[in-house]
C-alpha cells in the first residue's frame, strides 16, 4: 500500500480550519456541532469550541480543571476488605497517618501508576506522602524529562522502523521521570489502538509515532478531544479504513469499533447505527503524515444515529458518543481494570463516572479520583494483576537503572506476548482486561530468561558477554555488607519491602550455599566474598518469584 493512499474522490477543497502543520499530529478538531444535540450532563462544558489552539494550550486547560475537581481526599484504606486478608497481604496500612508513605504504599503506587522504581525514586516519592506522590505523578509537566529526551536522542533511533519505535518507547518508559504519563499513554494505546501492520506500508510506519505522540500529549485531556483527535489520526484513519470511506460508499469499520470498543460497548447500538454512523463519519482522509477533512466528501444526507437526527458529521458523532450515558461507565471500567483490579463493581466505578460527568469528561480528573480512591489503596488492589510484558520488561530495566540501548527488548516483549505498536487486533491486548492471560508456560520461561539476560548474560542467545547490571558497583555504592542487607536492599524497591520471612530465608540460603561457580567472586563491603553466580542468582530469584510477576 502507498504512503499517499488517497480516496478516489478528488479533494479540491481543504477545510482551512483543519489545516495543520505539515508534519506532526493532526489538530484537534474545532467548531460547534452542526445540529442541536442533547446538552452535556454537567453545565454544558463540552469544550470542543474555540480556536484551533495548540496542543499545549489544551493540556494547560485540562490540567487546570484537574485541580478544580480534586477534593476527594485520601481515605483510610481497608474499607470492605476482611481484616484477616488485609493483614495477610501486608496491606497498605497507615495511609492517612504520618507524612512519610510506606514502602508498600509507594511501591504499589509506582508499579500501578508507573513502571516500578529505583531505590532513589522510592525515597523521593515516599517523602511526598501518598497524596503528594499522586500529585507529582499527575502534575508531570512540573517534572523535567530532558535527561531522558537527550539520552534517547543520542541513540539516533530510526522512528520509521518498527523495531526502533519499540525501543524508543520502551526506553522512554524505563527512563522517564513522568511515569504516569507514559503509563496512561500505554493505556490509551491498548484502547484506541492501531498496528504498524496496517498504517499504509513501510514508508508510513512513522504514523504510529505520530499517533503515540498524540496519545501522550492528550493523555489527560477531555475524552471529546481525545476521540476527535484519534478519529482524524492518520494511523487510525488507515487502520480502521475511515480513509477509504467515501461520501457515497461509507466503510463500516471505524463506525462500528468506535462504538463497540472506544465508547459504548456491545448492546448500546444497532447495526443501523453502524450504517448511519459510517455515513456521518465520512470526509476524513489520510494525506501523507497528516490528515484532511474534505467537506465535499462528506455524506450530507439526513442520518438517524443513536436517536439523533440530522445531517450529522464526525463532530456530532463524537459529541453524541461522549455524552451517551454508557460511555463513562465503559471507559471507567477500562481504566479501573487496567490500574486497580479486575471485575470492578458498580460502586467501584460510580465515583469515576461522576467525575467524568462533573469535569466535562476530563480524563485527568478521572485519574485523580481513581488514584486517590480507597479502592486503589485497598488490599484487594495489592498485587491484583499479572504484570503485562511491558510492565515486566520495563520494570526490571528501570528498577535496576540500566542505561543500555534497548536492543533486543522488542523481541523479548514479543515472546512474552506483547509487541508495542502491534496489538493482536483492534480490541488491543486481552491481557489488559484479564491479566491472567499474560501468563502461560512459554511466556513464563521468557520472563525468567529475560532476567537471566539482564543479570548474567548480556544477550539472550550468547553466553559470556557482559551483563547489563554492575552488581559489584551497586554493592559498593550502597554499602551492602551482608547477605541479609543484599536481600533487604533489593526487596525494598523490587518487592515493596514486603517479603515474608520464610521466603527471605530461601533467598538467604541460596546466597550463602558454597559453590564453585565459574563466574568469580563478589565482595560485600564487609570484605567477605561470595560466588558471583550465587549473588546474582539470589537477585534472579527475587525477580522471577511469584511476587515479582504481580502488579
Amino acid at each position, binding site marked *: 500500500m502507498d504512503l499517499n493512499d488517497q480516496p478516489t474522490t478528488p479533494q479540491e477543497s481543504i477545510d482551512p480550519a483543519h489545516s495543520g502543520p505539515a508534519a506532526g499530529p493532526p489538530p484537534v478538531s474545532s467548531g460547534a456541532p452542526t445540529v442541536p444535540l442533547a446538552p452535556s450532563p454537567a453545565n454544558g462544558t463540552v469544550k470542543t469550541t474555540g480556536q484551533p489552539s495548540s496542543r499545549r494550550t489544551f493540556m494547560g486547560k485540562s490540567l487546570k480543571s484537574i485541580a478544580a475537581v480534586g477534593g476527594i481526599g485520601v481515605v483510610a484504606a481497608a474499607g470492605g476488605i476482611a481484616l484477616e486478608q488485609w493483614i495477610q497481604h501486608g496491606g497498605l496500612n497507615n495511609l492517612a497517618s504520618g507524612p512519610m508513605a510506606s514502602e508498600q504504599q509507594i511501591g504499589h503506587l509506582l508499579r500501578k501508576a508507573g513502571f516500578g522504581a529505583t531505590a532513589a525514586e522510592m525515597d523521593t516519592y515516599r517523602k511526598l506522602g501518598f497524596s503528594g506522590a499522586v500529585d507529582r505523578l499527575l502534575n508531570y509537566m512540573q517534572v523535567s524529562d530532558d535527561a531522558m529526551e537527550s539520552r534517547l536522542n543520542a541513540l539516533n533511533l530510526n522512528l520509521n522502523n518498527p523495531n526502533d519505535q519499540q525501543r524508543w518507547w520502551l526506553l522512554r518508559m524505563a527512563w522517564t521521570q513522568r511515569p504516569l504519563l507514559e503509563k496512561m499513554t500505554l493505556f490509551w494505546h491498548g484502547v484506541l489502538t492501531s498496528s504498524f501492520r496496517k498504517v499504509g506500508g513501510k514508508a508510513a510506519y512513522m504514523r504510529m509515532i505520530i499517533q503515540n505522540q498524540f496519545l501522550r500529549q492528550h493523555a489527560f485531556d477531555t475524552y471529546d478531544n481525545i476521540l476527535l483527535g484519534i478519529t482524524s489520526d492518520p494511523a487510525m484513519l488507515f487502520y480502521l479504513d475511515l480513509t*477509504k470511506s467515501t461520501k457515497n460508499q461509507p*466503510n463500516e469499520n471505524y463506525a462500528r469499533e468506535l462504538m463497540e470498543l472506544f465508547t459504548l460497548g456491545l448492546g448500546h447500538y444497532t447495526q443501523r447505527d453502524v450504517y448511519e454512523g459510517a455515513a456521518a463519519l465520512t470526509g476524513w482522509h489520510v494525506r501523507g503524515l497528516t490528515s484532511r477533512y474534505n467537506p465535499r466528501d462528506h455524506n450530507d444526507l439526513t442520518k438517524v444515529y443513536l436517536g439523533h437526527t440530522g445531517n450529522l458529521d464526525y463532530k456530532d458523532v463524537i459529541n453524541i458518543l461522549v455524552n451517551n450515558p454508557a460511555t463513562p461507565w465503559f471507559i471507567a471500567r477500562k481504566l479501573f481494570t487496567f490500574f486497580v483490579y479486575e471485575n470492578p463493581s458498580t460502586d467501584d466505578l460510580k465515583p469515576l463516572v461522576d467525575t467524568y460527568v462533573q469535569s466535562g469528561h476530563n480524563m485527568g480528573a478521572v485519574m485523580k479520583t481513581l488514584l486517590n480512591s480507597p479502592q486503589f489503596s485497598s488490599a484487594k488492589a495489592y498485587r*491484583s494483576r499479572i504484570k503485562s510484558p511491558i510492565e515486566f520488561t520495563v520494570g526490571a530495566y528501570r528498577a535496576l537503572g540500566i542505561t543500555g540501548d534497548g536492543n533486543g527488548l522488542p523481541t523479548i516483549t514479543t515472546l512474552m506476548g506483547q509487541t508495542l505498536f502491534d496489538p493482536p487486533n483492534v480490541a488491543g491486548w486481552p491481557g489488559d482486561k484479564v491479566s491472567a492471560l499474560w501468563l502461560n508456560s512459554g511466556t513464563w520461561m521468557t520472563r525468567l530468561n529475560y532476567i537471566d539476560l539482564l543479570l548474567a548474560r548480556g544477550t539472550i542467545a550468547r553466553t559470556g558477554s557482559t551483563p547489563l547490571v554492575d552488581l559489584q558497583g551497586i554493592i559498593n555504592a550502597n554499602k551492602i555488607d551482608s547477605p541479609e542487607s543484599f536481600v533487604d536492599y533489593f526487596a525494598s524497591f523490587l518487592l515493596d519491602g514486603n517479603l515474608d520471612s520464610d521466603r527471605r530465608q530461601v533467598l538467604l540460603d*541460596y546466597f550463602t550455599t558454597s559453590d564453585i561457580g565459574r563466574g568469580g567472586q563478589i565482595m560485600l563491603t564487609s570484605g567477605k566474598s561470595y560466588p558471583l553466580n550465587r549473588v546474582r542468582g539470589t537477585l534472579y530469584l527475587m525477580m522471577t518469584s511469584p511476587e515479582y510477576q504481580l502488579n
Partner: protein
Amino acid sequence: MKLTRRAMIKDGLLVVSAGMVMPSIFSRGVASAKSLSLDGSRVAQTASDRTLIVVQLAGGNDGLNTVIPYSDPTYLKMRPTLGIPAEKVVQLDTRLGLHPSLSPLKPLWDSGHLAIVEGVGYPNQSLSHFQAMDIWQTLDLNGTGSEGWLGKLVAGLVDQQGHPFKSLDIGVQTAQALQSISAQVPTLSSVKTYNVYPDPADTDGGNARMQALMKLYNTYPRSAPYAALLDTTALAAQDGSRQLHQADATYRPAVTYPKGPFADGLKVLAEAIVQNLGLRVGYVTLGGFDTHANQSATHAALMTTLANGLAAFYQDLAAHGKADNVVVMTWSEFGRRVEENGSLGTDHGTAAPMFILGNPVNRGIFGEPPSLSSLDQNGNLKYTIDFRSVYATVLDRWMGASSKDVLGADYGSQNFLPKP
C-alpha cells in the same frame, strides 16, 4: 520433582472424580489411561490416540471467496471487483470451487481427505469480532462465557492421564477455546524459546537455582491472588520444556515447511504428534482476515499461507505414518458481507464454510451453501448448519468424547466423519 507432579495430578484426579465434576467426558481417554497404567508404556498409548488440530482464522474469513459458488450468477453480481470468475476457481463440483490460492489443497480433495461443511453459523449471529469469537469458543451465545469448549475437554484429559502435552497451543497467549479453570495448556511460539536458560556461571546447569525458584513457587501462599496459576504454570513449563527438547533432538520433518509463523506452528504440532508426546488437541491461529479494504491481494496471500501450511503438515504426517491419526478443523468467527463494499473490501458477515481435513474424513460438501438471494436484513447469509453440530461430530465421532457433556446439550451430527 517429576514424581511430585505425578502424585499431585493423581490426587487432583481423585478429587475431581469423587466430586463428579467431569463424569464421563472422555471414555476413550479413561480406557487408554487404564491400559497405560497397566503396561506403563506411553508410546503404546499415544500411538493409538487420535489428535484434533484446530486452526483459527482470526478476523472473519471471507467464506464466499474461500469456497466459491462460482456457478451462481448472483455471486459475481454482488462481487463485481472481488468476485473470482469460474475459470480461475479450483472447481470441486458443478456448483462450488476453491479460491485459486487454495490449489495446494486440491490433491487432498482428489484423494478423498478433504470435507467442507457449508453455511456454518448459529442463531442471531453477532457482527462483533469479539462477541462472535467468544461464542465460537465458549458456546455461550451471549458472548459472556469464560471456559472454552476445548478447555473443558482438555481439563478432563490432563486430569485422567497426567500428561502435560495433552494439548498444545501455538502462540504467545492461550486461545480462549482452550481456557479452563483447572488445566494449563502448554503455549509456545517456538521450540527454541521454550526453555529456561541457566546462568553460564552455574556449574550444575542451573539446577540449584531452579530448585530454589520452585520452592518459592510451591510455598507461595495458596490464598494469594494467582497462586495456583503461577504454580501450575511453573510446573508445566519445566515438564513440558524437557519433553519437548528431548523430542526435538530426534525429529526430522519429512517436508520443507513454508516460511512464517503459521507453518512454523504446524511444524511444532507435527513434531509433537510424530514424537508421540501424547498430543490430543493442537491449536494454531492465522490472523489478518478482517478485510474491509483492498481485500483481493491480502486474502489471496492468506489463502496461500493456509493451503501451503496445511498441505506441508499433511505430507509430513503421512511420511511419518501418522496421517490416519489426525483430523484438522478450521473455523473463523464469521464470514463476510455478500455484497462487496466501496473500499474493494467486505464488511462483517455471518455464515461461512469450515474445512475438515485428514485421512479419517469422508470427502464431500456437507450442509447446504446459503442462498445468495435470500439474505437477512443486513445483507448477510442465513446459516444452514449450526457450528455446535460440527463440534459435536468431531467430539463424538473422532475424539471419543461425549459431546453432550462437553457442549452441554445434544446438537446432532454431520457425516463428514464416519460413525465410530
